[in-house]
């Protein structure tokens, strides 16, 4: 295709878009609404993820060592555990550290402070806190510790006390994720159908024009191309419109959401992920516009 042809097609699409300003505005508006719903779903997913994340972050497994255990042995165990692929990080709390922590936690309680002062020995145990990359890994880690060569040094592993809580957290996370997916999918399908129908109606209003173009010798490609350009324009403007509403709205609700759901910093998230967000919305918009136009116009090209 020659450059001249491309330019003509672009110009013709743009002219159509401008001249049908009412229809274009309506179609763009509906598409913008649809894209806004998409953005809303993306936001909900971010919120759901940060909820599950913050719940999962609270879960860990601690291993307590017998007071007689030498520190170098514990450090060896720490190394071993860190080497496990399922482990995200390991924190060693020495007996002294545990004692200081305990003192600090009960700084206001004179009775406890007095009793502590009377002790000749530190009664607290050294421990290792283990955080897994995924909450489903804790059972495996506990199992590993059971079988390790240092088993004799371990006083207790608190996984067995937390087991049920961990399982419940996993269930909630899974539930939130799969419901989020299902809702997103359902609303996406509805959104696509709405856009598709709107573009179809828009093209239907011009079906007589298409017929005439055929009768005066227009080839399919010549007739179709400007409509595709129009479809791209709908998508483009709709995306920009949706984004222009989304970001201010987000900063408006972000503080409220952060108050109620700790860790859900929406504004920050979407500003950090601005390139992906903008590109995704643009891509969805343009693809929706082009695909709807293509399918809609096919019906009218059979003269």
């Amino acid at each position, binding site marked *: 295709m020659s450059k001249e042809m491309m330019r*003509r097609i672009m110009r013709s699409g743009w002219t159509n878009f401008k001249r049908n300003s009412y229809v274009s505005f309506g179609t763009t508006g509906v598409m913008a609404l649809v894209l806004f719903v998409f953005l809303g779903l993306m936001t909900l997913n971010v919120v759901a993820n940060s909820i599950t994340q913050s719940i999962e972050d609270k879960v860990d497994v601690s291993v307590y060592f017998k007071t007689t255990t030498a520190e170098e042995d514990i450090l060896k165990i720490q190394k071993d555990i860190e080497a496990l692929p399922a482990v995200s990080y390991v924190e060693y709390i020495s007996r002294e550290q545990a004692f200081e922590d305990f003192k600090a936690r009960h700084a206001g309680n004179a009775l406890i402070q007095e009793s502590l002062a009377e002790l000749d020995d530190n009664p607290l145990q050294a421990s290792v806190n283990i955080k897994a990359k995924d909450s489903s890994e804790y059972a495996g880690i506990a199992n590993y510790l059971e079988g390790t060569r240092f088993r004799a040094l371990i006083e207790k592993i608190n996984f067995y006390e937390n087991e049920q809580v961990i399982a419940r957290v996993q269930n909630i996370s899974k539930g939130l994720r799969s419901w989020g997916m299902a809702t997103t999918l359902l609303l996406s399908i509805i959104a696509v159908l709405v856009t598709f129908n709107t573009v179809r109606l828009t093209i239907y209003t011009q079906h007589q024009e298409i017929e*005439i173009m055929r*009768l*005066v*010798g227009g*080839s399919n490609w010549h007739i179709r191309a400007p409509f595709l350009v129009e479809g791209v324009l709908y998508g483009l403007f709709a995306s920009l419109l949706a984004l222009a509403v989304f970001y201010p709205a987000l900063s408006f609700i972000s503080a409220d959401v952060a108050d109620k759901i700790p860790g859900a910093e929406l504004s920050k998230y979407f500003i950090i992920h601005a390139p992906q967000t903008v590109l995704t919305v643009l891509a969805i918009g343009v693809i929706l516009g082009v695909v709807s136009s293509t399918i809609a116009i096919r019906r009218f090209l059979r003269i």
Partner: protein
Amino acid sequence: MIEFKNVSSVYGDGFIALSAIDLTIEDGDFVSIVGPAGAGKSTLLRLLIKELEPSDGEVLVDGVSLANVHRADIPLLRRKIGTVFQDFKLLASKNAYENVAFALEMTGASDDQIAEDVPKVLAIVGLADKMTNFPHQMSGGEKQRLAIARALIHRPRIMLADEPTGNLDLVNSHDVLQLLKKIHSLGTTVIMVTHNRDLVNSLEKRVITMEKGKIVRDQKSGGKYVI
């Protein structure tokens, strides 16, 4: 040369529009086709631009059977034949200049050529000062002249006119006829379907009379509208 060989056309609902038509139209002819509504006049024209396929028989343009014209080549055929319709069939969203330019763009003409040819042809039909008007801003006569300009822009060798004056008053009808005569005088074959008795009688050219899908009279010259 245009040839209809034993052409029949039956519509989907069983209506017989044409039955076993044999007709030859020589290059440079000016043919009027007359007859009552439903006689098959428009069907004849629609077969020529392959808007319809014959149920039987063969239509040939310059010795080439239209049955052999592939779907993708239909636009090429339609660019060779200029067509004017009773309802003008102008593009409502394009102005006069663009309506004509559109037909030329299809052929891959350069912008320079379009900028040169379109005003010329609009001047021929007397619309030089209406180039930026949209069809809804024009009178019926102007619209039909614009449609003729569009049909002319390819310099077609065959011009089909389906009731070109059907929606026009006397004066405008006369103007349109003068245009068609001018086009004919430049060597173009003109085939006009019409109900306008005065128009046909003033032409004194070949007149084909149709009735119920059949040719009932073919006056080769000096023809009159007789029903």
